[in-house]
Structures are given as structure tokens and as C-alpha cells.
């Protein structure tokens, strides 16, 4: 399964990381698509969260409201994307506390607080396998950016 990601949404993702994180704090966004057309990412959502140089946590009330909004608008979460200060990898906290625990869910980590070029260079992509464990997959195998 390969999601189609509009280049504009990828650029928006990097803009949000740079504005919110300011090169000093981690940040997360969530990519969603409609259930009618699940393979085409259609929205970047910037959650209400607390963050510092080495991590972030989403606001509980915000998650609740978001869950209801997804049902109201017929959308689903497909990929969570967050930054790391330096190297991109999936930490034990990333493994344990994703926004979605379902087989095939993707988690993309962008290095250097997203200060580098827009794209997947040096990014790390992980996917939940059938046994619930995260496995590294290549971004190109799951994400196709289009203009």
C-alpha cells in the first residue's frame, strides 16, 4: 500500500515544523485522508501539544475533539509525522505512544527539526506489523509525493 502525498502538503508539514518548533522543539503533525479515498492524503493536522527539545505530548482534550471531528468529516488518520533534533529514528516512546495502533499505520520521523530540505532525505519511516511491532520501511515504498 502506497499513499499519495501532495507536494504542497509535504511543504506545509515542513513549514509547520519550522514555525512551531523554531529549531528548538520537537513537533508533530498528522496526515489524514477521507475514507472514500483513503490512499490520497488530503489534510495536514497540527495537534495542540506540549513540546521540548527531546519530545512532545498531545493534549488529551484535543485528541477527544479530533476523534469526533474525524467521524463527523469521514476522515481517518494515515500517517503521524514528527521531528527529532538530530538523527531520525523511532524511539521507545515513539513505539509505545502513537496516535493509532493499527496494522499498517505509518510513523515518519524528520531529522534536524525539519530544517533541511523538504523531502524524505535522512527521514525514518516505521510501520506497525501484524504482531504490533514497528518495522522500518523505506519512505519510497509507502509514500509517493506528487505535484
Amino acid at each position: 500500500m502506497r499513499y499519495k502525498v501532495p507536494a504542497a502538503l509535504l511543504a506545509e508539514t515542513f513549514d509547520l515544523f519550522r514555525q512551531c518548533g523554531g529549531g528548538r522543539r520537537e513537533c508533530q503533525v498528522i496526515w489524514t485522508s477521507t475514507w472514500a479515498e483513503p490512499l490520497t492524503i488530503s489534510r495536514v493536522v497540527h495537534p495542540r501539544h506540549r513540546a521540548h527539545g527531546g519530545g512532545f505530548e498531545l493534549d488529551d482534550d484535543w485528541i477527544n475533539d479530533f476523534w469526533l471531528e474525524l467521524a463527523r468529516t469521514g476522515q481517518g488518520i494515515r500517517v503521524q509525522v514528527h521531528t527529532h533534533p538530530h538523527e531520525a529514528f523511532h524511539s521507545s516512546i515513539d513505539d509505545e505512544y502513537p496516535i493509532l495502533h493499527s496494522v499498517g499505520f505509518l510513523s515518519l520521523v524528520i531529522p534536524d527539526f525539519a530544517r533541511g530540505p523538504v523531502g524524505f532525505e535522512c527521514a525514518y519511516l516505521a510501520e506497525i506489523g501484524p504482531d504490533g511491532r514497528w518495522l522500518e520501511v523505506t519512505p519510497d515504498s509507502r509514500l509517493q509525493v506528487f505535484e
Partner: protein
Amino acid sequence: MSEIAENVARHEPKHSLQLTIVNNGISKQIEIDREATVKALLDRAIALFGNIPQPHTQSLWTEKGVELTNENETLKAAHVKDGDTLLLRPGAVKGG
């Protein structure tokens, strides 16, 4: 059935609850006894959606954002009412 029995049946409170469970933008219906525990409802909700390999990470929340934390409590005691919508979602979302 006698007229008295019919009247009793008509006014007897309903024992089952029709609930809507929401997970990742999808809503599904569950009918469950109001004396069932929160844990029983959670297990059924997880089974209903399937594809959740780490079920211990999930919990049920009301629309107002209250987590049903006592899994041994009955739904009646947890003030879950017929027609309610509950959210099946992770308790915490973090990264680092």
C-alpha cells in the same frame, strides 16, 4: 399476557444499551447489557474494530473527554446511557 403483565413489561427499564463506538473516523454500533463491565465493553469494541495489535493501549472515553478508567465498574455505575457515543482511542500520545 395479562394486562398487568403487559403494563409491567412496558414500564420495565431496558436492560441493554445501544452504544456508538468511534475509532479513527469510523462509527460502529454495539448492544450490551448495562450491567456489563467497562472491560467487557472495551474488549468488544476492540474486537469489533479488529486490527489493533496492542489492545492494552486503548481505552474508552466519553464525548466530553472523560476516560472510563475503572474497568471493573458496570456501565450503569459508570453512567453510560442508552444512545451514548464512546471513543476508542489511546490514553496518551507522545513522541521523543
